[in-house]
């Protein structure tokens, strides 16, 4: 925690100054302004609005959108437990409960002395070393009851985070299988020299020959994207690296940025050469903010080496530089138009498409948005040529894929395979046994049952951005689907009616089933909502939101059916639950404070 400066306004003005008073920097300004007092008091928002000459309502709109920005006071120690299904499987609920009891607070509430607040957050990308948490934005993995006890003690003693044991903050790469990308030991600038030699046209042809497709999951041809941006009018053109890795269960970008940052930045520069772009952004998800200092150091080193900035490699018309833009807890910003809105300092609401970013993106300029892994892979093509790249993998899926493997297996971590690898082979390699199901591609992906384990990782079979979560025979697939439904309801941006209301309604139905009040009619309503979300949503978040339910209903229907009360209709309203607040106020939990429901009578 930074010490309060003499006057907060001076510090705030310093932040505004550093960002040139540009309204496009609003999100960055808010993130830094929040560091001053731990949250964003109303006068701070007013001050920022006045300084940037924008309406206060816009500042409030942005501050209210991102999960990691707070317009209400939070604790000086802000603890967020990662709440992916893999964290749940490792017991994060008991750990959070234990910490809350030790510190005498309730989840989501601020302690009376303002010392600490504890809540959950969406997957923090530590699934291979969970359960994970963020304390004031810094990641801690491998939580145990022992660690929780120590953390409680250090918070009570108000020990500064810098004095916490260093091993708490050590995040391992856990690379378990390397192939062409992870084995690449490239001297920074080597790929760049190669493509400058080829010329812009020649380089673009190599990328085309390579058949490289986007590693974010959608699989759009990279060369087509680059060529469209190059041919579009408008200057200066922009390259964006999408490091908003928010898909639950994915953590490959964390590892690439931690240990292969040069490949990523070099890939962005390779893209700039092909497109003729001069401005670059790395959109780094807020959960990975702890990587920021080392990434800035890599950028500084590359500038010094003449690999960024003006006249890169002494080429007269090759100017390109990269800035890092932080996110602040919004999964939807992984959608490329929402990401661009966020880059412009706005709420992360997906745009109407067309126009697509390649013609009208950041500030209306041609913009290429590529995944971290896609950009790193372009170094392989620059060094080894497009044909060699196209020779590995399958016909429609060239090259390799990084998989983030977590869940029920002996060795979770990062595995790089050539495309076309069967699920069964992966399960064997990572030491999974008695596997009931695999969720490939994260919450938005597909849930595969045992009879599908011969299917292959490839765009033409099982496409994925890289998440691979394993569930063994002891797991209840209904719980898995319900966790993902909660995730989507939390992350919906709220722009369109079907997603805003539909994800909340779906959550309500899943909770009703979980509480033992489900009826056959609910399954029909779930089915109807699934279809509406899929059809009518504005962007991919809404249309993917029902996937986990659709898959598990089809493949693991008994997990739903055994939760049904055998009635056509059962009201969601629970008389006994409605008395919970009264029981809490009167500190009672005896039988007399409960209403008998018919279920209990049956027992």
């Amino acid at each position, binding site marked *: 925690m930074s010490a309060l400066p003499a006057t907060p306004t001076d510090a705030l003005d310093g932040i505004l100054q550093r960002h040139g008073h540009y309204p496009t920097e609003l999100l960055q300004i808010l993130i830094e302004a929040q560091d001053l007092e731990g949250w964003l008091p109303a006068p701070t928002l007013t001050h920022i609005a006045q300084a940037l000459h924008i309406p206060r*309502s816009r500042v409030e*709109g942005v*501050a209210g959108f991102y999960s990691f920005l707070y317009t209400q006071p939070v604790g000086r120690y802000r603890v967020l437990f990662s709440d992916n299904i893999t964290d749940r499987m490792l017991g994060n609920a008991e750990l959070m409960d234990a910490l809350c009891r030790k510190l005498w607070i309730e989840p989501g509430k601020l302690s009376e002395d303002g010392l600490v607040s504890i809540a959950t957050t969406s997957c923090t990308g530590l699934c291979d070393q969970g359960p994970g948490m963020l304390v004031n934005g810094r990641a801690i993995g491998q939580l145990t009851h022992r660690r929780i006890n120590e953390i409680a003690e250090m918070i009570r003693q108000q020990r500064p985070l810098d004095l916490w044991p260093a091993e708490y903050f050590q995040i391992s790469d856990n690379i378990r299988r390397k192939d062409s990308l992870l084995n690449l030991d490239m001297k920074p600038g080597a790929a760049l020299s190669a493509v400058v030699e080829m010329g812009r046209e020649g380089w673009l042809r190599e990328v085309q020959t390579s058949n490289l497709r986007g590693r974010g999951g959608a699989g759009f041809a990279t060369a087509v994207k680059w060529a469209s941006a190059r041919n579009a009018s408008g200057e200066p053109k922009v390259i964006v690296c999408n490091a908003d890795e928010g898909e639950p269960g994915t953590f490959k970008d964390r590892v690439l940025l931690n240990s292969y940052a040069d490949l990523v930045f070099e890939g962005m520069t390779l893209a700039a050469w092909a497109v003729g772009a001069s401005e670059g952004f790395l959109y780094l998800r807020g959960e990975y903010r702890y990587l920021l200092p080392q990434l800035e150091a890599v950028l500084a080193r590359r500038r010094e080496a003449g690999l960024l900035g003006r006249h890169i490699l002494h080429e007269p018309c090759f100017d390109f530089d990269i800035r890092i833009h932080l996110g602040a807890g919004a999964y939807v910003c992984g959608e490329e138009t929402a990401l661009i809105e966020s880059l412009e300092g706005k*709420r992360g609401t997906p745009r109407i498409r067309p126009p697509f970013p390649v013609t009208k993106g950041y500030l209306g300029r041609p913009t290429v948005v590529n995944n971290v892994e896609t950009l790193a892979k372009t170094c392989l093509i620059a060094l080894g040529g497009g044909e060699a790249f196209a020779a590995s993998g399958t016909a429609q899926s060239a090259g390799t894929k990084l998989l983030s493997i977590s869940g029920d297996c002996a060795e979770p971590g990062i595995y790089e395979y050539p495309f076309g690898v069967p699920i069964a082979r992966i399960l064997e390699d990572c030491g999974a046994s008695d596997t009931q199901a695999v969720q490939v591609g994260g919450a938005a992906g597909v849930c595969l049952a045992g009879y599908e384990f011969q299917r292959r990782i490839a765009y033409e079979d099982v496409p994925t951005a890289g998440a691979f979560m394993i569930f063994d025979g002891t797991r209840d697939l209904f719980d898995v689907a319900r966790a993902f439904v909660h995730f989507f309801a939390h992350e919906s941006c709220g722009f*369109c009616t079907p997603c805003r*209301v539909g994800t*909340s*309604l779906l959550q309500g139905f899943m909770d009703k089933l979980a509480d033992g009040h489900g009826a056959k009619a609910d399954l029909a309503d779930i089915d109807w909502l699934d279809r509406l979300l899929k*059809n009518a949503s504005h962007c991919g978040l809404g249309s993917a939101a029902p996937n986990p339910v659709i898959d598990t209903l089809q493949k693991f229907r008994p997990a739903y059916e055994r939760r049904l009360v055998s009635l056509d209709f059962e009201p969601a309203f629970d008389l006994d639950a409605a008395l919970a607040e009264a029981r809490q106020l009167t500190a009672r939990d005896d039988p007399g404070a409960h209403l008998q429901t018919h279920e209990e009578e049956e027992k």
Partner: protein
Amino acid sequence: MTKQFLLDGQPVPFEDGQTILEAARKAGHYIPSLCWHQDFPPHGSCKLCIVKAAGRHVSACATPAKEGWEVESNTPEMNGERRGLLQMLFVEGNHFCPSCEKSGNCELQALGYEYEMLTPRFRHFFPERPVDASHPDMLLDFNRCIFCELCVRASRDVDGKSVFALTGRGIHKHLAVNAESGRLADTDFSKDDLAARICPVGVILPKGRGFAVPIGERTFDTETIRSKTLKEEES
């Protein structure tokens, strides 16, 4: 020869750049909407204008028409989805039509009738949304907000004031006003602003006058929203 597409089997002529919704209404075919307004660019949030074009669901307000497309709109399937979307809008807010000053002039209510919404179907969310009665001339009743952002856009793009903005996210998204106090009285909002008369539901209402026209004689009491919209299109 002018270009055309088929809407529910009927040919609809269009000019390049025209959206499905614009072309359809011009040709006398009704496609419903709440967030669309002829004086503003398409917004595409309410999704009531959803149609099936060449087999894919799209927002008619935001999708440019294409030669030879077959578009389904007035079908049991699409109207069923619209009814569902209306039910969603009703349950996420607090809508009590019988006591609402906007009853009979409200587009949400009119569409409820148009698409034969007989029940709310889903559980009500009953959100807590306090009213803002601070302004001398205008009342804000956030309970009825459907997030069409027409007031946001009108105030920002026409009135030049940005009195309104959305904040929060997902189901917790809500309207905020341009003042540190959060009170409309502390903004430069005026009853003469376009934003003061653009709300399709009953959020932004003038004070000092109530039920001047009796219920039963109001706009949509005497005419359906379908025929009123198409008539306006003709004039």
